[in-house]
């Protein structure tokens, strides 16, 4: 990519770079701030506000995606035959499980309450006590969540484990469970180093996940995003998104260097031509990306 220089003489960005960064930013706001905020907000008015801004961010992301797609800068792949076949099998198995339970005349798939009833949280996570979402507050969301096996109730069918399809037996985040699937073609797996369990979003990341360092979208693209003259970033912004400490001691530290691809989600950048923001990307590395460790720096 040839360098572009604006009238002010400063390094500029191509339209594609701009749109891609905006998409990344909107996804990040939506996934890692607004979505968990909705789940954690107890005040109805505040929750409604978060829902509204979340809807706005997803709408914005869609409009940016449409722009990129119209330019041929965002390629999407159709699911292959095997993926569709697997999906149909999963639906069939699901229906079998549900039908069996329904035919027994009861709601046999239930959250069994512990002696103290549903607590929603264990081990101090879940400041709001709003339920599983609070797992994000320190629960080890990889393997088993506290709400799956602690006093908060085990998720299992009342009668037969045997009716549970194999892929479901590991539970969320467990072996073979949700979050442990590998993307087709060895692509996006959602997690690296066991953290992330991406696809669930920040709730999961904040917690067991060591979400420290820098988001991939900032390292791969805008990571070393140094402010261009005139951006005049406030001090809190120089560290980029997600480097603030969380509400609890465990904190929310951002992302581990290089992992995650978070902020884009499975749908995005992995599917651009080269599948990478770095190296082979047609965008290349820009001068303002090449220093520092993901910090916003004023030049």
């Amino acid at each position: 990519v040839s360098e572009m220089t604006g009238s002010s003489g400063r390094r500029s960005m191509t339209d594609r770079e701009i749109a891609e960064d905006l998409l990344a930013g909107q996804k990040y706001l939506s996934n890692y701030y607004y979505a968990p905020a909705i789940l954690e907000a107890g005040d109805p008015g505040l929750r409604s506000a978060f829902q509204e801004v979340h809807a706005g961010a997803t709408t914005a992301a869609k409009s940016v995606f449409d722009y990129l797609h119209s330019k041929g800068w965002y390629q999407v792949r159709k699911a292959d035959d095997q993926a569709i076949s697997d999906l149909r099998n999963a639906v069939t198995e699901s229906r079998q499980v549900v039908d069996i339970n329904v035919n027994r005349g009861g709601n046999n798939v239930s959250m069994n309450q512990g002696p103290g009833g549903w607590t929603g949280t264990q081990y101090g996570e879940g400041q709001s006590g709003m339920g599983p979402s609070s797992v994000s507050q320190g629960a080890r969301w990889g393997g088993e969540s506290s709400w799956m096996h602690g006093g908060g109730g085990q998720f299992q069918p009342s009668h037969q484990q045997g009716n549970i399809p194999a892929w479901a037996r590991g539970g969320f985040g467990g072996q073979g469970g949700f979050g442990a699937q590998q993307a087709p073609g060895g692509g996006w797996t959602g997690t690296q180093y066991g953290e992330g369990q991406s696809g669930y979003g920040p709730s999961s990341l904040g917690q067991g996940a060591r979400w420290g360092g820098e988001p991939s979208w900032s390292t791969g693209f805008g990571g070393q995003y140094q402010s261009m003259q005139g951006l005049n970033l406030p001090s809190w912004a120089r560290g980029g998104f997600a480097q603030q400490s969380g509400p609890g001691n465990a904190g929310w530290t951002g992302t581990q260097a290089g992992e995650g691809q978070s902020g884009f989600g499975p749908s995005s950048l992995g599917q651009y031509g080269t599948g990478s923001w770095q190296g082979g990307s047609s965008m290349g590395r820009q001068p303002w990306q090449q220093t520092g460790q993901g910090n916003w720096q004023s030049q």
Partner: protein
Amino acid sequence: LQLTQTEAWYLGESIKGETLMSQKLTSYREMAQDPQLKALIENLERSSERHLSLLSSHVK
């Protein structure tokens, strides 16, 4: 109603994040060459301003 610690944290981070987005949008609007992209950015700027106003209204 007094905010909880968690609510206050998410609210603060959301405001900071949206402010950063707003700053980017302003900068990107000037950089963009494609009129279609410029128009899109202008819409996003208005949306971002609404979000900031809404979120900030919950900080008393």
